[in-house]
């Protein structure tokens, strides 16, 4: 009896703070739901509302009047999916080469890649802007897609993954069967590293979807922006921010992200942690 009581008390002492933590994690989402369902006059009244209201559809309508929501969502989807596709292709190809082949200059090129990994983004913001302005990409989604199409982090991460995941015997066997480099990549390497690709893909998609600083600078036409930039316009342009509308926009912008996260949550949480422990 006593031990059951003791373990119960221990369980409560453990789960109570964990539940409080969960509530704090979730609260801003709940708050956004509350605000997106109230009119601004309700929001500005005291005391703060704690339960959802009835003005959600009205806020949605006002949101669609205020910004080109679907246009900017399309831009975000276009950028995030193109970048994800290109990153998966280019990073996995390069990682496959670095993980499984020997060639002159390999050490040097890989060392260079690691140095690039550490160069902070601000250093390249101005020149990148100047280059893009010269070739006329400023204001278009190309300015977001091309520089992000391959990255050092992804190559490094995939290389670590491929080193152990792809067995040399498999490669040798496929070579004896007459498979060339591209066939080896497509038929031997890719099937084995699918979980790694899923992690990199989800990570890349979320990063691109949420990217803000560079789109804010490079998308100079306010009518043709990504969702994050459109949201920030919404927050800024009104003298007194209409929180009902802004919050509705913030909430709707989260939906695609939450879907992607829900699909890949197990993968991403597990793999992120693995990489960190390995150092």
């Amino acid at each position, binding site marked *: 009896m006593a031990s059951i009581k003791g373990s119960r008390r221990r369980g409560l002492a453990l*789960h109570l*703070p*964990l539940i409080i*933590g*969960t509530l*704090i*994690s*979730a609260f*801003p*989402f709940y*708050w956004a739901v509350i*605000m997106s369902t109230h009119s601004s006059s309700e*929001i*500005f009244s005291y005391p*703060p509302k704690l339960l959802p209201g009835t003005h959600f559809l009205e806020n949605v309508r006002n949101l669609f009047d205020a910004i080109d929501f679907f246009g900017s969502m399309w831009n975000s989807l276009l950028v995030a999916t193109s970048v994800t596709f290109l990153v998966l292709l*280019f990073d996995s*190809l*390069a990682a496959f080469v670095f993980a499984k082949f*020997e*060639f*002159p*200059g390999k050490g*040097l*090129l890989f060392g260079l*890649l690691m140095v690039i990994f550490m*160069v*902070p983004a601000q*250093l390249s*913001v*101005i*020149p990148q802007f*100047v*280059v893009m302005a010269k070739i006329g990409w400023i204001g278009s989604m190309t300015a977001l897609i*091309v520089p992000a*199409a391959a990255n*050092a982090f992804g*190559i490094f991460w995939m290389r670590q993954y491929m080193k152990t995941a792809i067995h040399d015997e498999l490669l040798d066997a496929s070579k004896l069967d007459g498979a060339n*480099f591209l066939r080896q990549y497509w038929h031997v390497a890719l099937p084995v590293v699918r979980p790694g690709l899923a992690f990199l893909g989800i990570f890349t998609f*979320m990063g691109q979807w*949420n990217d*803000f*600083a560079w789109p*804010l*600078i490079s998308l100079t036409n306010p009518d043709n922006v990504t969702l994050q930039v459109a*949201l*920030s316009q919404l*927050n*800024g342009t009104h003298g007194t*921010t209409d*929180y009902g509308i802004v919050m509705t926009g*913030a909430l709707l*912008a989260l939906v695609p*992200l*939450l879907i992607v996260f829900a699909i890949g949550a197990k993968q*991403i*949480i597990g793999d*992120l*942690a693995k990489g*960190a*422990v390995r150092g």
Partner: protein
Amino acid sequence: MAVIEQSPPAVAQRPSPTGPKKGLRKYWHLYAAISPFYLIFLGFGLFPVGFSLYLSFHRWDGLGSMEWAGLSQYQYLLSDSDFWNSIGNTIIIWALATLPMIFLAMITAVMLNSAVRFKNLYRFAYFLPNVTSVVAIAIVFGSIFSTNFGMVNAILNAVGIDQIAWLNTPWGIKVTIAALMTWQWTGYNAIIFLAGLQTVPSELYEAARMDGAGPVQTFFKITLPLLRPTLLFVLVVSTVTGLQSFSEPQVLLQTSSNDSTFAGGPGHSGQTMVLYFFQQTFDNNDFGYGAAVAWGIFLVVVLFSIINWRLVQRRGD
């Protein structure tokens, strides 16, 4: 590409059934496969970094002709009180966010490690803040910390404390930004710490318990030393990202500053280094000075990372 040709030929070459081809040509497909990254890097990485160094020795508004300025941009940077203010802001916000965050993340990880039930559910819930966009969540936090109708002031009022103008006072601004960062990154780091904890063999804990060690003693004598590599990783990542914070203060404070959307609120109290960089470059069109500021930021981040690295490494020895 000349570099490649000069590299030593001491590379293990597998005998090829088709016989040796000439020189580097037989490797062409390998070079082709890694080329996209390096091409992008040449255009948008190497050239930009070199160009930004060149730019920082010039005066340029982005349109007219460049003027040689020597070291004067850097001299001005050293005496620029706005830049030093932004360094101070950044470090204060970083400390306000990172220290509680690491503490909370570790405690959460230890609790998650001993909780058997609902572990996956907790992990999901704690990771959720990290996948949401900073823009959306900064807007949400702006309203939670709003002076007149925010939740935080409502709670303070309920317990009899006067409301605080969070987004209008120097400390209120910093605390709000730090709260947002802590909220977004604690769960992420807790999951990383949890993975580190799971590599600690359970026999160690059993042995400690047999020797009569309490939970606190166990934590400091066993858990903390073994978590040091993970702690180092978390600290370095939080330093590099935290010192380059931009979106949080930009979105939270863009409307409350009257001179620039990058000003960081009243009295520039929330202007981080990167915000200052954006203000100089894209609001003042001072590309030369902006480049110098970017190099200044780079230096601060590197210095700070080294200091953190040293602190964590030495403490355990």
